C-alpha cells in the first residue's frame, strides 16, 4: 500500500500528514500528531475513548479512516479549550463534581456531552444518559459524570437562553 499526502484540519490548525488508506483517524491523531486526548480503548467503536468531533458531529476515531477526514474540521478535547488552556465550562464542571477518576474516558465523555447540549439545549438527565451510551466509564458509575453535565446544562442555559429548544 502506498501512502498519500493529506491535509487534516485539527483544532483550527492544518497539518500535512502522509497516511496509508487503512490508517484510522485515531492512529493519525494519536501517533502522528501526538494528540494524547484521542485514545485507543477497543478499536471496535464500543468504548468511545477515541471520540472526536468531525464537522461538529461525534465520531469514533477508531472507525473513521484518516482519509475520510480530509477537508473536514476535526475537534478533539483540547480544541474546546480557550487561549492559555482556559478550561471549557464543562471541564470546570467535571473538576468540581469529581467526574474523572482514571480520566481515560473523560475526553470522549466531554465531547459527546458538548455535542448533545449544542443540539438539544437543555437535555434532561435521561437524555444525557441516552446520549452517553457509546461512551463507557469503568470507574465512576456515571453518577458524577451525569451530575457534571447537568450542572453544565444549567450554566449553558443561563449563558445562551436562545439556544433552549425544548
Amino acid at each position, binding site marked *: 500500500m502506498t501512502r498519500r499526502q493529506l491535509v487534516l484540519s485539527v483544532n483550527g490548525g492544518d497539518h500535512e500528514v502522509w497516511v496509508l488508506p487503512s490508517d484510522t483517524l485515531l492512529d493519525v491523531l494519536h501517533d502522528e500528531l501526538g494528540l494524547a486526548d484521542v*485514545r485507543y*480503548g477497543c478499536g471496535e467503536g464500543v*468504548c468511545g475513548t477515541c471520540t472526536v468531533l468531525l464537522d461538529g458531529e461525534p465520531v469514533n476515531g477508531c472507525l473513521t479512516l484518516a482519509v475520510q477526514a480530509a477537508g473536514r474540521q476535526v475537534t478533539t478535547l483540547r480544541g474546546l479549550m480557550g487561549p492559555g488552556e482556559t478550561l471549557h465550562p464543562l471541564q470546570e464542571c467535571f*473538576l468540581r463534581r*469529581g467526574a474523572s477518576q*482514571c480520566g*481515560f474516558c473523560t475526553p470522549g465523555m466531554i465531547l459527546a456531552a458538548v455535542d448533545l447540549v449544542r443540539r438539544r439545549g437543555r437535555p434532561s438527565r435521561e437524555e444525557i444518559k441516552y446520549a452517553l451510551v457509546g461512551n463507557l466509564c*469503568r470507574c465512576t458509575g456515571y453518577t458524577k459524570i*451525569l451530575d457534571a453535565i447537568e450542572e453544565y446544562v444549567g450554566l449553558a442555559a443561563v449563558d445562551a437562553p436562545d439556544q433552549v429548544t425544548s
Partner: protein
Amino acid sequence: MRCVGPPQPAGGQQLTEQSAGRYRVVGRSPAHHDFVDKVKGSLLYAADWRLPGMLHGKVVRSQLPSARITGIDVSAARALPGVVAVLTAADVPNNRIVEMASGGLAELEVAMPVLASGRVRYMGEPVALVAAVTQQIAHEAAELVAVDYEELAGVFDVESAQAESSPRVHEVGNTLVRWQIRCGDVESALAAADVVVEGEYRTQHAEHAYLEPEAGVGWVENGVLTLRVSTQVIEHAAMIAHILQVPQSKVRVIAAYMGGGFGGKEDMTVEPYLALLVWHTRRPVRMIWDRQESLVGSTKRHPFIMRYRTGATRDGTLTAQRVEILGDAGAYPNLSPRVLFAAAACASGPYRVPNASITSSAVFTNNVPSSAFRGFGAMQIVLGYESQMDQLAARLGMSRTELRERNFLAKGDLLPTGEPLDTCVEVAHTMHRAVALLGEPPKPSAPGKAVGRGIGCNRHPYGRAIWFRDQAAAWLSLAADGTLLIRCGVTDLGAGQAASLCQIAAEVLGAPLDDISIYIGDSALNPPAGGTFATRQLYMSGNAVLTAARELRERMTPVAADLLGVRPDELEFANGRVWPAGEAGGVSVTLAELAAACVQRAVSTAHLSTWLAEVGSFDPRTGQGHTFPDYTYGTHAADVEVDVETGQVTVLRYAACHDVGRAINPMRVEGQIQGGAMQGLGYALTEDVAVQDGYVQAALFADYLIPNSLDYPDVLVGIVESGEGKGPFGARGIGEPPIGNVAATIASAIQDAIGVRPAQLPMTPERILGLLDTRRVDPA
C-alpha cells in the same frame, strides 16, 4: 513576618459532619493536579510516549488451550522487511517466574514461563515476541510465526481437575493450594442446631475491562533497562531483573497514571515482553495490547464454587458454619493462593460464628489464568454468606435485618481464626442507613412484574495479609520557598492515591495544596511504597506520609518556636504559615521563612520515613492466627423489578453505605463507592467471560457487557465515619469493599420479588426464567 487573617478552607465544598472543625484539609474534596490534567486530556498514559527510533512490539499467543509445541519456525517473520527481532523461549535468559503468592506458606511451587517452552497450558499463552519498525509490520510478522502443536487433553473445570485420573496441568498436581480455618466443633454444632440451611453458589470468570488496555514503552539509559508502563506494581522491577539475569539495580520501572487497573495490572502485563525486546534490540520499544488480545490474554476474576452449611438456634443465633470454596486458578498460579486465602478468611462475613470449618482450594485448569480483581476472593464469597443469611431468615420467619443484627460481629469478638477484632464494627449502622436511603418500597409498574428489596452486608479486609510484614516509605522535603515535595513509590489507579497523600501532608504541615508536588511510581527515584492493591495504599502510604509529615514538623517546630518567641508545643501549621495555637490573627512565620531558618541552623527540611504495618503470623496447619490488619464494613440495599415473562431484572434504586472510618476526600470516597457498586452490578447481572473447553468466547469488547450510562440508576451513597480505622486520621480503605455486596444484594432483591434465590452469576434473564420455572413446578 506579617499578620494573617483566619485560616481559609483548602477548597472544595463537601465537608462531612464528623470532620468539620477538626481538620482543615482532610474531609474536604479539592481537585488535584492530576484531575486537572485529566479533564484537559493532557495526562500522558502509558501508550502516549514516543521515543526516537522506537520499535513496536507484539506477542504471539497460543491458539490452543493445551498442547505440546513440536516446532516454531520464525524464518518468515524474520525475513519480513521492517522486522528487527523475533524471540522465543530460547532467547529468555531465565524463563521461570515463580510467584509463591502466599509467601511460601502453603502452595505448590509452580513456575510460569515468560514464553512457552515445549508446552502451552492455556489459549492465549505467550509463545513468541516480535519487534518491528511499525505496529502494522509487527502484527504481520506475528501472523508469520509458524508454531506447530500437538494437541493434548486438557481439563477445564475445577471439579474434574481434582480427580486423580484428570490430565495434570502441572506435574506436581492440580490443587495449587488448600487453606483451612477451623474453630470449635462444627459437626457437633450442626447436629445440635435447631435449623440448618445449605446452599451451593457459583460465580463466573470476569474481565477487568479497564478502558486503557495494557501498554508501555521501554528503553535503555545509562545501562539501566527502563520501562514506563501501566502497572499497579513498580516492584516488578526485581522480577524483570531476575528474568534478564541482570542486577536489580539495572532495572527501573516507572508507573504512568493508569487508565484503570482494578487488580488487572497487579501482575505483570507487558513488562517482561517489553524488557526482552528492549534488551535484545537495544532500541526503545512500545507495546500496546489490542483490546481483543487483552480479552483473551489478561487474567480474570476467579470463578468460585461455594458450598455452605449453616446452623442456628430457633431465635436466629448462628452456631456453626461449614464452608468449602473451590476457585478456578486457570493454568498458572499468579496470585491465586492469596485470593483463596482472602476468601477463606472472610467466608463467615460480618457475623459471629462460634464453630466453623472453612476450606478453600485454588485448582489448576487449562483455562485463562485467574488472579487479582477488585475484591480479591473476599467479594465472591459475599454471595455465599449473605445468601445463607437470607435463606435462614426465610426458614425462621424472621426479618432479614433482624437476623443479621442478632449476629453482627462487635469489637473484641473473635474471628474463626481466633484473632480478636480491635476496631469498632458499625455494620448495623450502615445497614439501617442503606435501607433508609431507598425510601418507600416501590410498586410493580405493570401486571406480570414483581418488585423486591434486597440487602447485602460485607466485611472486607484492607492491607496485605499480615504475615507479609508490609511497609511503605515516603520522603518529604520542604523547598527553600516553603513549597513541599512528596516522593512516594505509590502508583495511581485513578482513585486519587497521590491526591490523598497531598491532603494528608497539607493537613499536618500546613502547606497549601497548590504548593505541593508529588512524584510517584518510580522504582529508581521514589522510596518504595509497595504496589497499589489490597486496598492498602491509604493505610500504608497514607500512614507513611502522615508519619513523615509529623516527624518533619516536629523537627522544624523548635526553629519556628524560636522565630516566634513562643514555646514549641503550641504551634499551628496551616495556610503556608506557622503561628502560636489559638492566635490565628496574630504573629506568624511563613513556611518559606521557616525553611530558610532551618537551613541557617543546619536543620534538614527533608525527611524519609518508613511505616510498618501490624505484623502477625498464621499457621496453615491449624488454621489459626492473624490474617489481615483490619476490615471495612458496609451494606448495600436495592429495589428491583423482575419481569416474570422475560426474566429481565431492572434495578430501580440502589444504595450503598460503608464505614470508611474517616473520609479524607468525601467526593473521592463517594466515587469509589459508586464505581465499585456499578462494577458489581455488571458482575451480578451481565458480565461473563464465557470459556468453553478453554476457549475464551468473547472475541470482541462488544461481547463483554459492562454497565453503560443507561443500564442502572444512580448509586445513592451513605458515608459513615466511625473514626476507628487504622489508616491516617482513623480512615479505613474503600477501594475494593464496595464491589463486594452487590451480587448478594441483587440476589436478595430477586428472591424477595419471586420467592426463589438465584445461586449462579450472572443473573441473566435465562437463569431467572429457569428459577421461575422451578417455582411453577414446586411452589414451595
